[in-house]
């Protein structure tokens, strides 16, 4: 498993192929739905996952969120890394661009 603070800025996160973002009619919030269940998202979680489209890298995600919430991208990086890493551990996020496992970097 890749440690959360080592997600490089050029990594491109993408929802797992079986996971889908959709709006929850009861609360109006976004939900991440996958084969075994449902994860109700808060607004920032939803904002992050909307940008996990398989084209946008981590650095761009942070700068876009920074504009949206009027914070500097650098201040957001650690939180976004932690959030994405948690979903990665639950197999709901995949990474393109960089090898996803530290093991592969071993000599």
């Amino acid at each position, binding site marked *: *498993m890749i440690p959360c603070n080592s997600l490089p800025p050029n990594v491109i996160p993408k929802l*797992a*192929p*079986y996971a*889908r973002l*959709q709006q*929850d*009619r*009861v609360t109006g919030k976004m*939900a991440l*739905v*996958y*084969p*075994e*269940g*449902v994860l109700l998202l808060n607004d920032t979680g939803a904002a992050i996952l909307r940008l996990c489209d398989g084209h946008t890298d981590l650095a761009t995600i942070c700068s876009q969120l920074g504009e949206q919430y009027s914070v500097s991208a650098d201040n957001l990086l650690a939180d976004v890394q932690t959030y994405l890493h948690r979903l990665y551990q639950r*197999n709901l996020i995949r990474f393109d661009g960089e090898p*996803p*496992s530290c*093991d*592969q970097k071993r000599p």
Partner: protein
Amino acid sequence: MIPRPFGLLAELTYRCPLHCPYCSNPVRYPTAQPELDTDEWIRVFQQAADLGVLHALLSGGEPLQRKDIGTLIAAAHDAGLYTNLITSGVGLTPSSAKRLKLAGLDNVQISFQADDPVLANSIAGTNAFRLKLLAVRAVQEIDLPLTLNVVLHRFNIHRIPQIIEFAVSLQAKRLELANTQYYGWAFKNRKALLPSFQQIEVAAQVVAEARKTYQNRIEILYVLSDYYSPRPKPCMNGWGRRYICVNPIGDVLPCPTAYEIPNLTFDNVRAHSLQWIWEHSEAFNCFRGTEWMQEPCCSCPYKEIDFGGCRCQAALLTGDPSVTDPVCELSPHHPLLEQQLQVSTPPLSPMEEMKDKMSYRVYP
């Protein structure tokens, strides 16, 4: 306050070409009423979405036995539900898989009985293995997300390494290894199916090692049987709290195996809306929340975590659905479970013996 459901389990039919002796379907099917028709299921999906459901498991029996399966998937999808088809794979061809994907299918789960064709076919009670391979290929060709599922018991649990290799060779990205839960046909066959403690211990080690070996190639989900867990599972995430189940004839159950509970009556979608049933059905309200609990559950700090475990299991093992799940070490009925396990730990039997010992599932 009554919570809102997130998941719908739609058992579309009890018909199935397989005869797996661990099936969780009821041993005595309700045969008096016909299956829900297409329009009735469409109404169920719409009403479920109105109630707040986001997620639909389309299961059975074998859901592909429904000729209208494409229409049903499209209706669930159009209602805004995530659709997950739980199938044996029998009947899934490249063209039908393509049609179901276009209808809006989000994920397919195909079951295998084992990695070895002879063993797999003898567990299924029919020659389904080859058709399942074709189904896997059909799903992969159209790039639909695929989960493989293998239910584990005494006759295949020793083959976990081979099963994982098999799943990897099929290029599956997810494999669910689920130990048999003992309801329905599985409860009837429990003495033959229960693995030994030693088998369970070895299996856990093998899975842990395989997860390291195949870390980036396949995701392995491993589900332990209640009988071997020290604490009960939060069954259905709490009775009448997260899930609603509609069976082939339209009875609405808080849990797919709730027919196991004696003297419980169920309301039907032909007579009431899903919302009315969710809120008012006696079957949903009798074990909702924590009011119904007895000791040791009442004063237990885990009561909002495991919700007293499984009501069906309590009923099956003690006759009383309102007692603590006997799986729990704190239950006064826990020795009953140990008795079950003691009579059920003979060494691994050859396949011929398996046939003598088990009742294959039949329908009707």
